[in-house]
């Protein structure tokens, strides 16, 4: 038990970043992720690493750009409206192929919305978010432990693919305290970065750019980026499955919604309904193929989200109308209730009747 510590998801993520070798963190206040920035202010400086409270989300993401360009592991965090502000920078980071980690502790939207947990930024996170043809790897934790653990994966993936990686969390996961086991191992190895800006000593000058005006060169660059995205689609998909082997009804949910779904699977099973769960850990790339493989023997799918139904479209894409889909969603900070999920499940499968004696 000594290895377990009680931490909020935000703190757990901060500690994960530190243990994963984050060299530089740049933040700007916004609720519900402020604990993370405060954690980094204490601990990055204690370790002699770089911490700046930036003057805006724009400055913070461009500081990430700079630190990544200098070959360092860099991270920023924010919540929904702040992540919108960072989109230009994320597009630049993707274009310049810099490794970076961006944490979105989602809150209710649109606009200033509220500070309650939500999952309304799914489209923004998984479809690129900023301008131009690019995607970002999106990781979706559903516990304080995973906010800690997935940070390691985020830095490793960012370095491996020279790409921005988004950790898509929400205010509930960020603020909830849970016991977690801290990572003991070394940080993921840092690959050589011969492209980094470190001063042109004994080598030709390096440049990092996204303005590519030479005839045909930008199309070539885009083709190169798309080839990388195809590799990511093949190599990075991750998901968790629960009781899917004999499931008649499959629940699909990520993050906080997946925790509700886990409870609903247990309840449904106790009522004799064969329910299972597919929980994507990567939202892009999305486990379309796994869903497609599970679809033929399902009576129905229930998608649960704290949004109007954004991930729902990926599920629809995956099964292509072959299985009926029910959606349980709440917006504006509402969290779906287990009984609403159970009601949706019962649309596809009835509880086993207790036999009454004649």
């Amino acid at each position, binding site marked *: 038990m000594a290895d377990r510590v009680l931490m909020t998801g935000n703190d757990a993520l901060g500690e994960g970043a530190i243990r994963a070798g984050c*060299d*530089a963190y*740049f933040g700007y206040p916004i609720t519900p992720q402020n604990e993370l920035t405060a954690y980094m202010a204490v601990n990055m400086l204690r370790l002699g690493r*770089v911490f*700046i409270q*930036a*003057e*805006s989300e*724009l*400055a*913070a993401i*461009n*500081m*990430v*750009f*700079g*630190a990544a*360009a*200098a070959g*360092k592991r*860099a991270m920023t965090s924010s919540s929904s409206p702040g992540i919108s502000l960072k989109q*230009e*920078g994320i597009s*630049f980071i993707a274009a*310049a192929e810099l490794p970076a980690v961006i944490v979105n502790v989602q809150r209710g939207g649109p606009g200033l919305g509220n500070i309650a947990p939500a999952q309304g930024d799914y489209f923004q996170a998984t479809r690129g978010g900023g301008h131009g043809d690019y995607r970002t790897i999106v990781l979706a934790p559903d516990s304080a432990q995973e906010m800690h653990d997935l940070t390691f994966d985020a830095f490793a993936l960012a370095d491996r693919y020279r790409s921005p990686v988004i950790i898509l969390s929400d205010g509930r996961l960020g603020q909830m305290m849970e016991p977690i086991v801290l990572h003991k191992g070394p940080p993921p190895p840092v690959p050589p970065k011969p492209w980094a*800006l*470190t*001063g*042109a*000593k*004994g080598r030709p*000058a*390096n*440049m*990092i*750019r*996204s*303005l590519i005006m030479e005839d045909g060169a930008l199309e070539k660059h885009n083709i190169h980026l798309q080839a990388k995205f195809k590799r990511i689609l093949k190599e990075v998909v991750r998901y968790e499955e629960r009781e899917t082997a004999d499931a008649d009804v499959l629940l699909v949910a990520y993050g906080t919604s997946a925790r509700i779904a886990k409870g609903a699977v247990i309840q449904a099973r106790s009522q004799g309904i064969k329910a299972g769960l597919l929980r994507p850990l990567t939202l892009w790339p999305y486990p379309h193929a796994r869903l497609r493989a599970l679809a033929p023997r399902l009576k129905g799918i229930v998608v649960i989200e704290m949004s109007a139904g954004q991930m729902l479209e990926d599920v629809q894409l995956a099964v292509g109308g072959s299985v009926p889909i029910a959606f349980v969603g709440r917006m504006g900070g509402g969290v779906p209730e287990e009984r609403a999920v159970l009601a949706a499940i019962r649309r596809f499968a009835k509880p086993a009747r207790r036999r009454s004696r004649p």
Partner: protein
Amino acid sequence: MSDAPRKAGSRTIRSLYRRPAALKDTPTHYCPGCGHGTVHKLLAEVLDTLGIRERTIGIAPVGCAVRAYYYLNCDISEAAHGRAPAVACAIKRCLPDRIVFSYQGDGDLAAIGMGETIHAANRGENITVVFVNNTVYGMTGGQMAPTTLTGQRTSTTPGGRDAVSTGGPLHICELLNTLDGPWHIERVALDGPAGVRRTRKALTTAFQAQIDGKGYSLIEVLSPCPVHMHLPPVDAMRFVKEQMVASFPVKIFRQEGKRLA
């Protein structure tokens, strides 16, 4: 090129002037009479003179100088419009023994990037900002910049800049001089040979301050843009000397952390 004396017939020819190592041998894309080429060359000379080319990292703006890497032979990154100081600060904090400068125009630095400009200066970040003020957005076609003079015609102030609806020219050196963070703030003008020499000296001071770990410096260079000033190159230089300097006094505002003006 070698510095060694070469025999040519009976006379000895010695190279007295040559391209700085920090300047690439590239045809320019800048318009005739543009000040950027001069500032690039001075910058390259200063990097050479101070022996810092191989540990210098530059940040190019969005604007005419976005392709500074075509000319300057040191590590260079682009930045999103106005964000060069944020990129520069992060690089300097991550690599404190490198020399980091941003090179920005008036639209980039004083309009869209004003937030980053003020806060980098206020934090006294140990970076050097080269601010080329030519009173217009050059690359996009000569629109009004924050530094456009009152009455000056641009594509978005066809009747001349009207202070009532568009404000007056923004004075960056004066504004930053109200902060405690900066170490050196100076305005110079490319208005003739003396101005060029003074610009070189100012840049040297600024980079030396960074080498010595003193903190933030900004050199504002008043610079001609003949195309968008709608003037032949010589008249554009005269415009700098007479019109611009009248609104933007050429002087040292902050020296060794002390306010002089």
